[in-house]
């Protein structure tokens, strides 16, 4: 819920900053909404494993027959279901405020739908790396933001492509990046969890 409100608030601030020219706003809508979505996803990330780590339930989870990789994947899915998916659902409404044409709005919706899982996945690696650090929430964005730059590039690129009526293959590339991130991240995340649990 908080992430959604943050997403909407950032998107509202942008026209206040760049002016109310709808043609300009439609042009930058894809990039702005993608950046806002990534930032909103980061908000909840540092709590992804933190609460479980602090009250010791992460140790109990680690002892369960499920592998830590599976746990990490489940956490990634949970994070996406509570941030990425609602953000995607809200995005057409915000696109409307930016004067984005229907076709580009569809591209934005689809790109967020297939792209935000990669943000959750890469973010989970950052969250598990910074787990035992005090004030790890400050380092987390520095680690995660450069790593998710391809998602922003392809996501916003897909919207621009739809706006200009060009098929530029951005959605396919975004899907590939997202898929690879979701497959590989649980392993890196589990390795980081193990070291923070001190085993």
């Amino acid at each position: 819920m908080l992430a959604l409100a943050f997403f909407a608030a950032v998107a509202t601030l942008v026209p206040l900053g760049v002016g109310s020219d709808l043609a300009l706003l439609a042009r930058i809508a894809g990039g702005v909404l993608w950046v806002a979505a990534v930032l909103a996803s980061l908000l909840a990330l540092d709590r992804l494993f933190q609460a479980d780590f602090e009250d010791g339930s992460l140790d109990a989870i680690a002892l369960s027959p499920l592998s830590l990789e599976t746990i990490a994947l489940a956490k990634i899915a949970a994070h996406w279901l509570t941030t990425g998916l609602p953000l995607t659902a809200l995005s057409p409404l915000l696109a409307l405020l930016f004067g984005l044409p229907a076709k580009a709005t569809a591209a934005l919706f689809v790109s967020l739908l297939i792209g935000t899982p990669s943000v959750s996945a890469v973010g989970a690696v950052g969250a598990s790396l910074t787990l035992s650090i005090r004030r790890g929430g400050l380092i987390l964005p520095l680690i995660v933001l450069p790593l998710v730059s391809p998602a922003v590039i392809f996501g916003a690129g897909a919207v621009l492509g739809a706006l200009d009526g060009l098929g530029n293959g951005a959605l396919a590339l975004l899907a590939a990046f997202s898929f690879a991130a979701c497959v590989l991240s649980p392993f890196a995340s589990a390795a980081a969890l193990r070291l923070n649990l001190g085993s």
Partner: protein
Amino acid sequence: MIRYANPARFMDLSGAILPWLAAAAAALLAAGLYLGLFVAPGDYQQGDTVRIMFVHVPAAWTAMMAYALMAAASLVGLVWRHPLADVAAKTAAPLGALFTALGLVTGSLWGRPMWGAWWVWDGRLTSFLLLLFLYLGYIALWNAFEEETRAARAAAILALVGAVNLPVIEFSVQWWTTLHQGESIVRKGGPLISAVFLWPLFAMALGYTLLFFSLWMLRMRTEILDRRARSLMLAGET
């Protein structure tokens, strides 16, 4: 290789090699600078600004090499748990960040007269800026841990994730610049570089590489001595 990975043996060996390595780096850099600044003529289009190439291109090469070495050392440290590999990875990061920053600054100085802007959102510039952020994140993560071995393993995981992701970032940024057609596409610096430019460039590239290895070795020695001093202090307290 493992035989030389013993810290005591590394200290002996690096102590013997370091002066020669540093001297070779200094000689090559001096020769490269002389060739580049006095022997090579100004370019017919770029004039004297072409000489920035001799300090810029090798810095960029060294910065990328530093990341590869850091990732390799991280892998060794993660798999074989060897403390010397951790030291190697840790000490390579600030050097890599420095060479990346150097590449960005010299590139910016070249871009001002050539492109008329200090910064353009060109593919190579942007991916180098992201590389700098990766280095900074790595250094910040290492410093945030209090325990050395834990810091080493966390940073190693990050370095490897970054190493997997770097080609993707590189590709996506290149793709992004071709999407935004127009003004900022870099024209390659002339179709053919003549030998009079190539020799100083080679000398500088080798000089930068040796300089990196000298500084790296020096930092590794300092780090090992620092750890010894700390453990001696701890032993003295108890």
